């Protein structure tokens, strides 16, 4: 994982110091607007263009997987904000995914409307559930909050079993797969919907992070007493962060329901909630670029470990647990080598390259900017 991360920029920048310096100079001339909204919009457009190019050039199955990456990125974005920015932990994101997924399925069954509207409602329902859980939870310190959310992830699936007439029991409910216009494949169309949602979520969160709310989140994370003395309503801030993360999980769950075509509790085991937390830490808590590393790991780790175990000709049961083992090992290595996650590691490498390119003189400026950049991304 870590090795595959660093090479590309090295290859791009390696040629020779003078050329490198020229490149750096011209990069310095390339000014982006300071306004967070405008700058984030530029990233939004660039990201959209990138995903467009990728999705049209790969196979339908890869499109399906890219859509999955996007939906997990939505969930991880909320979780990353919650943990990285507000210092709260949730082991129950899977439960909020269930809420979003069932909300979408129930809407589509009983009151079908425009898909965009359905997704917004599913998000709001999950966010509202986040407020309900968050209100008492805001009084708890992180380990206890983790316990409460864990209970939620364990208990909520029972509810779906208990009220089978509403939630369809073990079989669950069906969702309507969006019809692709023209000659676009169903997988590609679905991936675009999911990517669009992910980009919008990241855009909104990137702006939120730079706003008053973002500063409040960080203030509460760093010192609740100090934040309170500064006039920040601590409990309200924590509940808001929790609701946003729940809303993101709900949207992700709804998007997963679109992929699967069926919603039932079997899709959201406890292991999913834990894998989400691990993927968030892997990518880098609090980083909106890091979530993409986490999402890629979530989607591709099982595939890679399967092919690896085929190479090693392991038995099926050993092969199946290899995925978890590799995930755990990678997580440990990342935490040891780059405590700020993969994205933190990438940033560190790039900073070194930058110093090599423009010289020691600019190091302080770069570092200074880097710290502020961490907050932004």
């Amino acid at each position, binding site marked *: 994982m870590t090795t595959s991360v660093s090479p590309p920029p090295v290859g791009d920048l390696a040629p020779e110091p003078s050329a490198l310096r020229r490149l750096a100079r011209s990069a310095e001339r390339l000014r982006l607007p300071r306004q967070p909204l405008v700058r984030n919009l530029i990233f939004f457009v660039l990201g959209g263009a990138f995903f467009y190019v*990728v999705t049209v050039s790969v196979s339908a199955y890869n499109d399906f997987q890219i859509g999955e990456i996007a939906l997990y990125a939505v969930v991880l974005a909320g979780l990353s904000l919650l943990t990285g920015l507000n210092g709260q932990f949730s082991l129950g994101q899977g439960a909020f995914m269930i809420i979003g997924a069932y909300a979408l399925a129930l809407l589509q069954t009983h009151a079908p409307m425009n898909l965009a509207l359905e997704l917004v409602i599913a998000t709001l329902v999950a966010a509202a559930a986040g407020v309900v859980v968050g209100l008492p939870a805001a009084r708890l310190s992180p380990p206890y909050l983790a316990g409460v959310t864990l209970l939620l992830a364990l208990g909520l699936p*029972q509810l779906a*079993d208990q009220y089978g007439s509403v939630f369809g*029991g073990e079989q669950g409910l069906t969702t309507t797969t969006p019809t692709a216009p023209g000659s676009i494949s169903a997988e590609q169309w679905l991936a675009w919907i999911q990517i669009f949602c992910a980009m919008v979520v990241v855009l909104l969160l990137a702006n939120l992070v730079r706003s008053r709310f973002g500063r409040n989140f960080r203030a509460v994370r760093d010192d609740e007493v100090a934040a309170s003395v500064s006039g920040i309503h601590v409990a309200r801030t924590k509940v808001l962060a929790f609701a946003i993360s729940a809303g993101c999980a709900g949207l992700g769950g709804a998007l997963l329901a679109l*992929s699967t*075509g069926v919603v*039932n509790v079997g899709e959201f085991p406890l292991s999913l909630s834990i894998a989400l937390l691990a993927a968030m830490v892997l990518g880098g808590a609090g980083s909106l670029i890091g979530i993409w590393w986490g999402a*890629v790991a979530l989607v591709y780790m099982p595939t890679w470990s399967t092919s690896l175990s085929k190479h090693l000709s392991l038995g099926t049961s050993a092969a199946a647990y290899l995925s978890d083992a590799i995930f755990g090992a990678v997580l440990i290595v990342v935490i040891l080598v780059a405590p700020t996650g993969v994205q933190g590691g990438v940033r560190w490498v790039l900073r070194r390259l930058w110093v090599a390119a423009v010289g020691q003189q600019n190091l302080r400026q770069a570092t200074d900017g880097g710290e502020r950049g961490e907050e*932004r991304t």
Partner: protein
Amino acid sequence: MKIRSSRPVRYRSVAAVGAATAVLAAFTGVGGPASSAGAAGTTGVTSDSITIGATVPLTGPAAPGYSEIAPAMNAVFNWVNARGGVYGRKIHYIYLDDKYNPATTAKQTRKLVLTDHIFADVGSLGTPTDLAIQKYLHSEKVPHLFIESGCNCWSTPKYPETLGWQPPYTTTGKILGTYIKANFKDQKVGELYQDTEFGMDVMKGINLELPASQVVSKQTYVVTTLSGAMTTQMAALKAAGAQVVVMATIPAATALAILPAVKLGFHPQYVVDNVGADAPTVGPLLATFTTAATKTKLLAAAAKGLMNGVVTNAYLPPESTATNPWIKAESALLQKYTPTLWAKHGLDGNTEYGVVLAYTFVQALKAAGKDLTRTTLMNAINTKAKSFGAPGLVPLNYSKDVHYGFMGSQVVKLTASAGTYTTPSGTWPVAKAVSPVYVTTTGSGKVTVYKGTEPPVPSEVAKLTAAR
């Protein structure tokens, strides 16, 4: 100054996105869409090969027992391929792990369809999992054959490609109910079932046959929290004075119900739906749970014996009838063509299940003829299934309107005094027939006696013999 200092950061972010682009592109294998369909004509079929696939739980909570089925199917395919295939086409069977998670099933099935270009999905396991792919397979026109589930939900004109394999749960319930009504006439009956469609549909069938006054207590369990002994439920059944306990339980739940009953001094007559009554599957679980609870292996052997006397139903020739030529052939196939599986499990309810299912698919391919397409295959199954000659106590019932394979079964009693048979996991009581073979419908149709006999064993199968 501040403006200047922030520029490197921007550049860095751009570079990070660039790196992410490159890596993501590498992961997803940018390089043009994969070509669809192999040779001209039908997807997954060439002049010398047929590619089929399935999603099954190889790991996770549903894996014990069920993970044997797909590998056992390869015993038949390896045998057929060694003999040159079907019309010169060798069968490639790709089964992927879905951990019994429908979201994973959906993903893995897309892999099978979009990158492995399967001709048909054959023998995917589970109700919620197969429901998650039914619509998709229909939209891709991929036959969705022999689903390993007895859900009453597979037969619908909306999905002509979907065919279930096991007897629908309601039919097995009706047949067990008929037996209870005839043989335990004035006894009090208690019910214990899984709180999902599986349990409820079996009980629906039981309650269609049994007078309501005879049922004294109804107990359920939730499968997602199935972990400890079901003492509460068994105590309630005992308190209600149940003399017969009829159960719709998965194998682990059967064991977790029988063990606390022994502790409570409660020894009812058990009538267990075939899903959770395979002795070589439930027996080792009984032993494991006993060892775990008592921290000693002393009682494990005795626990294994608890399956003796259990009444259940069978739709395939019971694996314990060693004299049955089908059973001999099935053992031989497993021993010769999947030796590792044979050494580990022998012929139990799961491996037999896989072998018969795969053999049926091969017969379907033969019936579809040399010109194999998805349409000719579906037509062959819908019109000729009764003449496939696959082992089964009742003939395969597929037609354009009915998408269930077996619509009947026979009630059997696991009876150690009638003989035993041995598998790698232990020695088990044989299944002794205690009723005629019954057939029925999923609705309120009557339970009737089926007069036909098992199909004869074809000579190429009869030639297969092995030491058991």
